[in-house]
């Protein structure tokens, strides 16, 4: 018991989130009983959240350095569109199954590199040129979405090889593949943000750019790294979306931007930078997805009510965090 209490005291934000998570879980389970607690429900949850979960982690990284990346969804879509454009051209019915897998692998690696490159453009504009993150990513968002529209002519790109949808739709040991992908990158992100020197430097950068400069860090390189991580994770999300929809389009997931900022803030990342942890963000992803699936079970509630709920929740969470941090400040000054 003492050990649990110590953990709780060590990270209050995380423990609060766990309590919220359990409370939401209990309410959902109580209200919808067997429907909510079924294996198939959890499997469909496991397929739904990885895409925006990955985007939320990407967003959390940029918020952590007092920035923001509005282009995450655009990067995800553009990467997916590129893959969807290339695959049908390269793979013909005559291609042997082994060859198909090799091409798929190469295409996916290419997409991830491309996403990282998009992130590098953001990082360059923000770190080297010195454009405010909101504007730089607003511009690249338009640019990337524009490129995707040009490539697709505004329509949906289908005709992907069966392996893509089959692969993403499969279950390994009962776990959906997207969930496994998410788990791998989430763990990596937790490590980078909380255990690595890079994470430490990013926190410094988020707290104060000047302090970071005077500590001898190369800020341009840090911004580049930060937005490259964000671009990379966005591209991963794009590939997951490609598999789930079995197609690519320039404007899939347009509403995700708002949702992923909500998740990052809910997870305790301070939009003014320098504060927050990845574990909190990951729990926040589960909370949001759970509420979302639960709302889905009521046929009377239209999808649009969710927008109201997310908006209200975002502002309430901001205010709550503010009140808590004010109280802590008061305590500290006493």
């Amino acid at each position, binding site marked *: 018991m003492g050990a649990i209490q110590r953990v709780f005291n060590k990270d209050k934000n995380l423990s609060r989130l766990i309590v919220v998570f359990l409370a939401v879980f209990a309410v959902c389970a109580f209200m919808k009983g067997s429907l909510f607690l079924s294996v198939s429900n959890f499997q469909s949850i496991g397929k739904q959240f990885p895409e925006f979960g990955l985007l939320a982690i990407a967003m959390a990284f940029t918020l952590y350095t007092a920035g923001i990346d509005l282009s995450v969804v655009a990067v995800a879509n553009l990467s997916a569109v590129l893959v969807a454009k290339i695959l049908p051209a390269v793979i013909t019915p005559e291609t042997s199954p082994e060859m198909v897998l090799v091409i798929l692998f190469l295409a996916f690696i290419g997409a991830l590199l491309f996403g990282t490159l998009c992130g590098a453009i953001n990082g360059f504009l923000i770190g080297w040129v010195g454009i405010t993150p909101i504007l730089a990513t607003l511009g690249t968002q338009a640019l990337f979405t*524009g490129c995707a529209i040009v490539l697709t002519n505004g329509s949906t790109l289908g005709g992907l090889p069966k392996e893509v949808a089959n692969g993403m739709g499969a279950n390994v040991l009962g776990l959906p593949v997207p969930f496994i992908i998410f788990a791998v990158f989430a763990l990596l992100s937790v490590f980078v943000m909380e255990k690595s020197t890079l994470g430490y430097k990013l926190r410094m950068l988020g707290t104060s750019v000047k302090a970071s400069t005077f500590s001898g860090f190369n800020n341009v390189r840090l911004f580049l790294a930060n937005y490259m991580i964000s671009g990379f994770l966005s591209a991963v999300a794009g590939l997951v979306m490609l598999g789930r929809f079995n197609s690519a389009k320039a404007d899939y997931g347009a509403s995700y931007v708002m949702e992923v900022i909500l998740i990052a803030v809910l997870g305790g990342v301070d*939009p003014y930078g320098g504060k927050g942890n990845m574990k909190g963000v990951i729990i926040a992803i589960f909370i949001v997805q759970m509420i979302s699936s639960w709302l889905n079970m009521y046929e009377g509630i239209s999808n649009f009510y969710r927008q109201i709920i997310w908006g209200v929740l*975002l502002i309430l969470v901001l205010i709550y965090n503010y009140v808590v941090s004010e109280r802590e400040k008061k305590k500290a000054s006493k």
Partner: protein
Amino acid sequence: MKRRFFKSTEFYVGLVLALLCIAIQLKSGQFFSGNNLVDLVRAFSIPAMFCIGEMFVIITKGVDVSFPAIASMAMFIVCSKMEALTSNPLLFFLAAMLIGLVVGLVNGYIIARFKFPALIVTLGTSSICFGIMQGVFKSREYPLCAPLYELGQTKLFSVTNPVSGLTSDMPVGIILMLLLIFVGWFILNKTMLGRGIYAIGGDEKAAQRAGFHVFRTLMFIYAFSGCMAGLIGVLRSTMLLAVHPNNLMGMEMTVIAACVLGGVRMEGGKGSVLGALLGMALLTVVDNSLILLEINTTWQKVFVGAIIIIGTAVSAIQSKRDAQKLTVQVDEGRS
């Protein structure tokens, strides 16, 4: 004074705009035709009006992305619910402004009271407004009610192109646009409130010590932006002669980009009405002239994105150089 003018962002944006117009004229021969100009003004009017409100916000270091949602929500509620109650178009506008004002006050209160990043707060209220419009009021394409339809059909004048035979009408709403631009210019340049807006953008603490009421000023800015968004929403529906609830989505991006292109700095404290309008004019010309240049319209977003990046990069590099100049001077003084 003259030197300063030639170095200003407004001058450069104006120059680029003029060159672009001439280039398009040379390529297509249709740019300076009467109906094209009227069409451009029509396309320019709505975002230009949004620019005024957004500019105020950006000068104080904030950013408001909720105005398309406020405008759409106010427009839909008013146009779908008030039809039976009244036939006075003025009341429609007033009701929409009232709705906008309420949302604007909420924005302003949360941002000014808690000092949250304006982007995130307005993103939240934007989501709430779209949710209310689509969920609670079940928005859809809706025919415009008679009094507003009549208003929309009245025109100042119309121009016919002798070559293509296309006719374009100048809507009455243009008067409202000119009025709003004047009000914006007047507030910023001729009132204490305007001084306060610039002062808060420059340095909030210094502004407070100088006696400006920061909380009230911020409240005013967001309330003004919201109120005007309501007005513009209804005006938009009269221009389109129908209620398109999702038509304004994404306009926040163009408007912010236009302001910044025109020299309104996101770091706060700088910007002029003329600059913001020139920025908007540039984006409007690019947006609408791709067809004249025989470029496929799918390229539109690519161009807009590229312009935003180049424009903001230029101003970022400029302000970086200014900062460097300042330090050099200090160093020289010391040695």
